[in-house]
């Protein structure tokens, strides 16, 4: 998190960058693991067979979309509705990809495809911090790839354990809270600047008010309103936001 290694020449190798990505992802392990575990358990508890649950986890790698699709699959809902639901629940990732796009623009299309596919919330935030704080860091893509692959492995291992041992995992412990706390840990330091704090507060309010909207649209709405509000705040007090 606070690795302040200066990236002066000769600079880190690609391998160093990938390892740094892994290192900066690892502290989030309890959160990612708990989330994967709970998702795995939920898939089996919804009635999905172990083989299908494993396939869904390994192929889709999309916690919230998987969870949203489960009740639909369990009730044999139309396939188009399942697709639409997964699409809408995933919408925040369109914004994520718009944010990190400049960092990948120079790569071949098939690498961009899979770099987009392996994004997770934690590595997304870490990568944007790196782009902001160390714009000249070489091997940003290796940094991202290392952390994102570590995230994938941790999530899949946890999810598979959850699927296979669904009966033995105590759901009453509220383990999924650990995943949310990992996001809180990423969020808190970002809010030390006024426009960001204002945007986050707006996102919180709108997300809470919009909770009853279908397909987690309240979440997307909160995010968009928060971004717009942060912009307004920044324009209202341009001098103060030069701190970063």
């Amino acid at each position, binding site marked *: 998190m606070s690795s302040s290694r200066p990236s002066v020449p000769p600079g880190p190798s690609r391998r160093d960058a990938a390892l740094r990505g892994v290192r900066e992802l690892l502290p989030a392990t309890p959160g990612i693991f708990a989330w994967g575990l709970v998702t795995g358990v939920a898939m089996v508890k919804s009635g999905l067979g172990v083989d299908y649950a494993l396939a869904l986890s390994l192929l889709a*790698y999309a916690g919230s979309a998987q969870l949203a699709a489960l009740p639909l699959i369990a009730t044999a809902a139309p396939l188009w509705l399942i697709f639409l639901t997964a*699409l809408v629940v995933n919408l925040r*990732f369109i914004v994520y990809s*718009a944010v990190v796009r400049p960092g990948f623009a120079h790569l071949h299309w098939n690498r961009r495809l899979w770099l*987009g596919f392996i994004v997770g*919330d934690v590595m997304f935030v870490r990568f944007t911090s790196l782009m902001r704080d160390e714009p000249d860091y070489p091997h940003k893509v290796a940094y991202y790839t290392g952390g994102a692959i570590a995230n994938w492995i941790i999530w899949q291992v946890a999810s598979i354990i959850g699927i296979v041992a669904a009966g033995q995992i105590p759901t009453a412990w509220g383990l999924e809270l650990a995943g949310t706390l990992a996001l809180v840990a990423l969020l808190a330091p970002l*809010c030390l600047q006024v426009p960001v704090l204002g945007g986050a507060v707006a996102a919180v309010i709108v997300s809470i008010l919009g909770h009853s909207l279908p397909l987690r649209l309240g*979440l997307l709405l909160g995010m968009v309103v928060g971004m717009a509000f942060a912009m307004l705040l920044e324009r209202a007090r341009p001098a103060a936001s030069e701190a970063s």
Partner: protein
Amino acid sequence: MNDVYLWSAILLVTLATLVTRSSLHLLGERLRLPASVESALRFAPACALAAIAASDLAYTQNVLDLSLDNARLIAGLGAAAIQLGTRSMAATIGGGMAIYWLLRWLA
């Protein structure tokens, strides 16, 4: 529920994941966003995290609970304070879970 249906559902969820996460990457340089949108995107990480965390913490089984009885909410706020004090994610997750479990045992 037959095999074809289940496999179709799994592949469609996968496709939805790919479309949302990678389509902008595939468009690459061809898509130009307005400067104001590009600028607002800087706030996306914090706003996304805030929106997700708020709906996770403020609601218990789809019921809004902003009272001190909501152990998850208190644990979340405590975790934010721990993060700002220690800058350690391990301490934040561990401390937050400890607060949560403690409050539940006390309740």
